[in-house]
C-alpha cells in the first residue's frame, strides 16, 4: 500500500457527498437513527437496580479515639464499605469524590468521642457520590442501623450510662451530585453512550461491507481513491448522525427527565466527538474484517453486549468482580459514562476528566491502525 500519495480533498468530498445521498435514500436506516434513541430512552427510563459491595471509602478522621476506630471497623465489616484512604483535609476528600476514586467520604469531627461521652449527641458526616443511586442505596441503608450497634459495644464499664439512650450520635448523609437519588439522572446520560456505541459501530460496520457485498467496492478500488480518503469520507455523515442523536438525548434529559447539567456543554460535546470517533474507527475496522453485512452485525453485537454489561451502565461498576472491572476498563463506553456523568452531574472540568480521556484516545488509535492495516486496498 503506497501511502505516500497525496490526500485529495476533492476525492474525499466526493465520497462524503455520495454517502449523504445514499443515506438520504435509505429511509429505514434514517428512521432507526432517530427512533433508536427515543425507544431506548423510554424503555430505560425505568432503571435496573443492583447491590454492589466493597465500595471504596475515604475516612477523614480528626478524632482517632477507640470509638471512632470501632465505628470504621463496623462499617468495613458490613461488607458495603472498604476504606481505601485516610485523608487529612476536606479538600483532598472532595477531590477524591469528584474524580470518582471513592464512593464515600466519612468525616469524623475532632471532638466526636468527647461529645459522645458527654451525651451531646454528636454528628458524623457521610458524603456519598450518588450519581448512580443504585450503587449507594443499600450501603446507606445498612449504615443507619450500624452506628448504634457498634458504638454500644464500646460503651461498657464507665460509659454504660450512654448505652441505654437511643442514638448516641447522629449520622448525617450528604448525597452529592444527585441528592434525591433519582435513577434517571444516571441512566439518561448513560444511554447516550450506549446508543452511540450501538449506532456508530453498526452504521460504519455496514457502510463498508455493503460496498463489498454489492460489488461496488471493486469499482471504488479501481479508481485512484486512497484508503484514507475512503475511510474518513465515509465516517463524516455518521459523525453528524451521532451529534444529532446526542442532541436528542440531551434535550430529552433536560426537558423530559429534568437531569441537571452542571458542567460545560461544550466540553460535553467535545468528549462526545472523541467517543464517536473511537466507535467509528471500530466500526470501520470491523468492516474491513467482515465478509458481509451479517458478519458486521454479529461483530457489532459481540462488542456491544460487554460494553453494555461491563461498563457500569447496566450494573454499578463497583459491584462487578475484579476481572469484569478489568475488562470494563478497556472499553471506551466505561470511560465515556464516567465522563458524561462527571460533566453533567458533577460539573467536572477538563482537568478532572483527563484520566478518562486518554483511554478512549488510546483505544481509537489502536483500532484505527489495525483498521488501516487490514483495509483491503486490493480486492483479495
Amino acid at each position, binding site marked *: 500500500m503506497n501511502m505516500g500519495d497525496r490526500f485529495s480533498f476533492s*476525492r474525499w468530498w466526493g465520497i462524503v457527498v455520495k454517502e449523504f*445521498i445514499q443515506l438520504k435514500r435509505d429511509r429505514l436506516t434514517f428512521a432507526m437513527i432517530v427512533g433508536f434513541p427515543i425507544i431506548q430512552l423510554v424503555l430505560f427510563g425505568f432503571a435496573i437496580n443492583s447491590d454492589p459491595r466493597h465500595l471504596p471509602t475515604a475516612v477523614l478522621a480528626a478524632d482517632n479515639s477507640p470509638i471512632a476506630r470501632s465505628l470504621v471497623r463496623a462499617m468495613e465489616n458490613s461488607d458495603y464499605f472498604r476504606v481505601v484512604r485516610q485523608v487529612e483535609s476536606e479538600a483532598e476528600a472532595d477531590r477524591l469524590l469528584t474524580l470518582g476514586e471513592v464512593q464515600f467520604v466519612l468525616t469524623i469531627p475532632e471532638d466526636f468521642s468527647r461529645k459522645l461521652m458527654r451525651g451531646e449527641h454528636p454528628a458524623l458526616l457521610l458524603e456519598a457520590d450518588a450519581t448512580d443511586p443504585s450503587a449507594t442505596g443499600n450501603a446507606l441503608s445498612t449504615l443507619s442501623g450500624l452506628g448504634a450497634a457498634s458504638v454500644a459495644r464500646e460503651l461498657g464499664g464507665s460509659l454504660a450510662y450512654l448505652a441505654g439512650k437511643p442514638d448516641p450520635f447522629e449520622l448525617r448523609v450528604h448525597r452529592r451530585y444527585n441528592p434525591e437519588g433519582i435513577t434517571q439522572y444516571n441512566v439518561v446520560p448513560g444511554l447516550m453512550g450506549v446508543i452511540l456505541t450501538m449506532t456508530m459501530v453498526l452504521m460504519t460496520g455496514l457502510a463498508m461491507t455493503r460496498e463489498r457485498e454489492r*460489488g461496488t467496492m*471493486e469499482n471504488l478500488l*479501481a479508481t*485512484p481513491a486512497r484508503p484514507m480518503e475512503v475511510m474518513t469520507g465515509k465516517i463524516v455523515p455518521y459523525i453528524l448522525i451521532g451529534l444529532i442523536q446526542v442532541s436528542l438525548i440531551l434535550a430529552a434529559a433536560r426537558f423530559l427527565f429534568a437531569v441537571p447539567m452542571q458542567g460545560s456543554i461544550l466540553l460535553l460535546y467535545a468528549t462526545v466527538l472523541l467517543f464517536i470517533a473511537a466507535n467509528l474507527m471500530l466500526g470501520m475496522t470491523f468492516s474491513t474484517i467482515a465478509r458481509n453485512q451479517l458478519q458486521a452485525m454479529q461483530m457489532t453485537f459481540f462488542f456491544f453486549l460487554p460494553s453494555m454489561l461491563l461498563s457500569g451502565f447496566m450494573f454499578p461498576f463497583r459491584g462487578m468482580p475484579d476481572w469484569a472491572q478489568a475488562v470494563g476498563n478497556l472499553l471506551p463506553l466505561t470511560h465515556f459514562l464516567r465522563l458524561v456523568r462527571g460533566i453533567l452531574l458533577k460539573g467536572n472540568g477538563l482537568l478532572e476528566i483527563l484520566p478518562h480521556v486518554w483511554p478512549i484516545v488510546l483505544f481509537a488509535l489502536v483500532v484505527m491502525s489495525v483498521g488501516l492495516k487490514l483495509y483491503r486496498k486490493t480486492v483479495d
Partner: protein
Amino acid sequence: MPDENYAIDVRGLNKHFGRHHVVRDLALQVRRGEIFGFLGPNGSGKTTSIRMLCGLLVPDSGSGTCLGLDVIRQPQEIKRRVGYMTQRFSLWEDLTIQENLEFIARMYGMKNIKTAVAASLSRLGLSDRRKQLAGQLSGGWKQRLALASCMLHEPELLLLDEPTAGVDPKARRDFWDQIHGLAASGMSVLVSTHYMDEAERCHKLAYIAWGKLLATGTAAEVVAGCGLTAWEVSGSRLSELAAQLRSLAGVDQVTAFGNVLHVVGRDGQKLFEAITPVQESTPHRWQPIEPSLEDAFISLMASADQVFET
C-alpha cells in the same frame, strides 16, 4: 525500457490465493489500438489477470508494464489511465445515473465534471433519464452505463471483464461496434468473453485455462496452432452415431451443430483410420472441413484438463 508500441507488456505474472495458484507465469503483449480477446473457462484466472493489469491486485511475482507504467510499482498511476469494467455491475444502484457518473468523475479528480457528465449522458442517450436510479435499469442499459463510466476519464486502455454477459444480441452488436470505433481512434482494449462470435471480432486472442496461457495469436493462428482435423457429418439418427464415434480411439471431440456433427481429432491420420470403417457401414454424408475456433478452444480446454487433473 518499455516498448511504446505495447499497451500491455507483462511477463511471468503469478498470483496465489492461499494455496491456490490462480495465475501461472502469465505473459501477455497487447499492442496499442488493438482489440485483444481473453478467453478461457470459468475460474481459469481471467478476472484475476485483469485485476493485476489494472493495479487492483499486486502480483506475487513477475514484471512488466501497462501503458509504459510498472505494474508492480506504479498501480496508482495505472489506475488513472486505465478504464476497468467489472464483470458484475458495480455502480451504485441507489444512486441515479447522473450521480454515479459524477461520483466516478470526482474519484478521478476530473476538472469539468458537469460538462463531462453531460456529454457522456448525451452520448449514451440517457439525458432524459439521468435522474433515474441505476438499480432500475435493464441489463443492457446497465452495461452501457458501466462502459460510459469507465470511459469518463478518457483512459488509453480499456479492460473489460465479460462485458456482454446477459446482454441481448442487438445490444451486444452495438457494443462491439462501439469497441471497434474506439480501437480505430487509438484506444487499446482487452476484453474477456465466452462468446465465439465475439472472440472472432477481436484482432488477437489469448486462451487461458487453470491459470496458464495455452495459446495466443490471431483467431486463424490459434486454430492452426491446435493442429486439428475436422469432418462434418450429416444425415439421420446423428445422436446414435455420435455415441458410436465418441467411443473410438483417435476421435477427440464429437459436437452437434444443429443438423450436423463435427468430428475432430488431434491426429489427422488416426482420425481417418478410426472413421473409415464407420463411413463405410453407415449411410451418412462425410465431408472434411476447416476446424472452427470453438473446436480449437474445446480441444485446448480438454488437453489442459488432462494435464492438470492428473
